């Protein structure tokens, strides 16, 4: 393939051309574009790099750093396939984009549009549900909430979050 990085540079993340982004002491919102994401069906937690979120019984989402080589499927998919023989794996890297929410108001912000009790969501665990009319995966890391949302809904969610964030910024 001719110009690898050139091809990677051709990608547009769903929120790339929007004014999305909130930065304030108590709350910040940002898109984390181009993450390598794969869904794995496996009774046990799959062997995989990066974050591994449980989406449901025998259903996992792996979140790893962006790919560096353009391909129909991110390399992470084959990597996870090899490490978890017999487990169906699907590349969903472009099926969801990632919004990172940090700050003391992060959990409360989402409570304006999500009826799930996120205050008790432990670090390392995720929930699937609805946020502001969009189906999302919400995972909690040590210092942030990660929202995985479909690109088609990303701009709606970004606009909604920006509006809801007003009182906290």
């Amino acid at each position, binding site marked *: 393939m001719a110009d690898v990085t*050139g091809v990677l540079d051709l990608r547009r993340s769903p929120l790339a051309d929007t004014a999305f982004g909130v930065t304030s002491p108590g709350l910040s919102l940002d898109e984390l574009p181009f993450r390598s994401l794969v*869904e794995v069906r496996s009774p046990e937690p799959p062997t995989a790099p990066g974050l591994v979120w449980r989406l449901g019984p025998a259903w996992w989402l792996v979140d790893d750093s962006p790919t560096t080589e353009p391909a*129909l499927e991110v390399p992470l998919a084959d990597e996870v396939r090899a490490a978890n023989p017999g487990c169906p794996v*699907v590349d969903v890297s472009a099926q969801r984009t990632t919004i990172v929410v940090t700050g003391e108001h992060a959990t409360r912000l989402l409570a304006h549009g999500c009826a799930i009790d996120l205050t008790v969501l432990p670090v390392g665990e995720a929930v699937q549900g609805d946020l502001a009319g969009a189906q999302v995966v919400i995972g909690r890391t040590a210092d942030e909430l990660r929202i995985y949302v479909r690109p088609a*809904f990303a701009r709606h969610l970004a606009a909604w979050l920006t509006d*809801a964030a007003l009182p906290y910024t």
Partner: protein
Amino acid sequence: MARRLPTGGSRIDRSRPVTITVDGETVEAYAGDTLASALLAADRLLVSRGIYSGRPRGVIGVGVEESNAYVQVLDDGHVDRGGDQGGGGGEPMVAATTLEVADGLAVERIAGRGWLSTDVDHRRYDTLTTHCEVAVVGGGLAGLRAAVAAQAPGVRVLLLDDGPVLGGAAADLPAGSPAGLELEALLGELTCEVLVRTTVTGSHGHGRLVAVERGRRLHHVQAARIVLATGAQERPMVFEDDDRPGIMLACAAADYVSRYGVLPGERAVVWTAHDAGIHAALELAAAGTELAAVLDVRGSMAPELAGALDALGVPVHLGAEVTGTDGSDDETGRLVRVHTSAGSWDADLLAVSGGSNPAVQLFSHPGGRTRWSDEVAGFVPDTPAPGQAGRESVVGAAAGETATIPGWREQLTPPAAWFRSSVGDPERVFVDPHRDATLHDLRRAHAAGLSSVEHVKRFTTVGTGADQGRGFGVLTVGILAQELGRPVGEVGTTTYRPPYLPLSFGLLAGRNRGVLSDPVRVSQVHDRVAHAPMENVGQWKRPWFFPTADETGPGAMDAAVAREVAAVRTGVGMMDASTLGKILLQGADVGVLLDRVYTNLFSTLKVGKVRYGVMCGPDGMVIDDGTTARLSETAWLMSTTTGNAASVYDALEEWHQTEWPELDVTITSVTDQWSVVAVAGPSSRFVISALAPDLDVSAEAFAFMEWREAVVAGIPARVMRVSFSGELAFEVNVPSWWGAALWDAVAEAGEPWGITPYGTETMHVLRAEKGFPIVGQDTDGTVTPHDLGMSWAVSRKKPDFIGKRSLARDDAQRPDRRHLVGLVPVDGRTRIVEGAQLVAHGADLTAFPVAMAGHVTSAYPVGHDGQPFALALLDGGRDRLGEVLDAVDDLVPLAVRVTGPVSYDPEGARRDG
């Protein structure tokens, strides 16, 4: 401030004067005042008029029990962060007793009916969900005790109170009193989350409470346990002319003194049915009101109370009753004289207290049952709703406890005195002043044969006003019981329904307004096509057509579509097909599942190939169609219509999980993973080969209904040779983040061939000429694959597929079912209208009913031959080709000839270019 006392007023801040406007006139108040206290302080007693009678009305109560003082807010003077520009135009029917004043507050007095302003509502509303282990509703002593008791590590307790301060009735007592001391102690121990000015308006079962904070924020509270400490509301009494300004609830009158430093009357008669009224009388006297007389419906009075009144030299009349009142001659009609069974007195205040009603509404919402208690003389919680049992408890005055506050406000001793047995004119005894309903109306209802309180409510409209009977409701029940000669408990109350207090539509809409009211979905190509007029397809925005600079005005769409169609038929066009649903199926048994959900055979599909399929519901009616590509032995990629992507995805899961879990299949939605650009037209092959030099696009190497992996403009892609236009066509699928780049590349590579972007309308024309139906447009849930002429896609070999059995029913076999056919205007010119009904040619359109034989499902002004054409569902249509019918739109007939559904390239010669 004529009636403002020099000192006192626990809720007002005399250092912060506030100016408000009432009917255009300025009124001075203090921060912390309610509109009602400000009006009383300004000696403005006339706050409304009877909705029908026009009789002058004044403030009756001090809180949500108010039934007269409803005003139209012109501007609530509220401005806060986050863009809330305040109320602006009128908010109808706001209770003056719960409306806190603010600079700029402007109100208008009304007569029981508000109005809607056309001003834009600039207020910001939002919703917040709070989860907790214990929700305590009501911040009086009982609620505070419950909250403090529940506080523990890991236990989230949420205390909600509708007032500006905690403490409830105790907050109105001297700090040194026993209750005052306990309140101080409890507030000291309180550590849980507290929401004031937040009224719980509904208890919706399963631990869900809905509350409103200052009219702006809707709280959803999800609680493992609910403690209802909602207190009680003072009950009025009724008599002739009981509705004059100056006639108030006794405890409310006293509260105006303690909370707002307002003296509601110079000279008062107090009529009570329980000790609270006497305590109130003493408070009023202490504040400077001259007590002309105290009447108690009971035959005896507690010595210490009698002593206290005697010490003040107040005449006390036991077993006495008010018989009527006189009002002033001026427009206020304010109280000037009180007539009683013990004599008459001049007075500007008649303070009555008929007992109190435990606030059981929230207990009742989810289905809790109440019972009448003679001891309390009110309806008290009895059986909680089965769903709430164990989850919910009621404490304090709301539970009918008669001594929540030690030694304070014991309830009346039975029997409750509802009203004088021999009143004067029943048409002047108002049992619901808000609705102008009288004792006369109650008696008419009874005489009409009605005995159910629900019937009487509807007959008289009692309790249907803005106060929903919070003030007079239970009183009405008592009076009705007396009329019917039945026990109060047997008559019972009407059903309490949410909301406890009115909720504005805007509040309930919350943030879901304008563009946020329903998510807008856009493809990852959207920015490249956003200049086109958009068609709303469900939540999606799809380009409808692409007008050029000179395609404007009414004819713009026709011109653009004609140009786009011509481009695809003779050259090449491109469209964003990303919104089509895409579902990845993996596993050894995918073929088996597809054989069951599609009407045709799929398990035989070879890797590298694509097949079109039709899906039916169990009833045999078409629910979706699309192509499925076999990516590998164990992976298949299904496409669905844009609108049905979610329902097909769900249906596949349902069949797999609930009927055939033994199948080795996993199902994943990948709709958003892929951006798809369709390149269609005889020249499409040149465009694709320019974009993908390594891909052999010859008809031999890359046949129709096959797919290939390729690098397109440097982008890794999956290219499919499928066609929804009948022309040679390629659909290029790339990971969606390359969607915009792919669009640019195709546009650039296609330039030499004049590649033309086209939208949904052109796509519809192209497919319609080929007789390809659109599910949901050419079908309506009553159409089988056979009706569509797709018997070729219905397997006879397969033992079963979903819908097969239904297709075997007599009705599905009728030869006269509605078939998909084509139509052309006989005159070759006139455009056919979608939705037109088909009738016999020349049918008399004035002799109704006119027999209808079908309807037009799709119609377009021009096809490849420059003539209008249409698709239609027609009774027995396949046997009527060539027949002339009238297509009737708005009773105007158009002669049309029935054709086959395929009007272009019936032999399918063009798909290979």
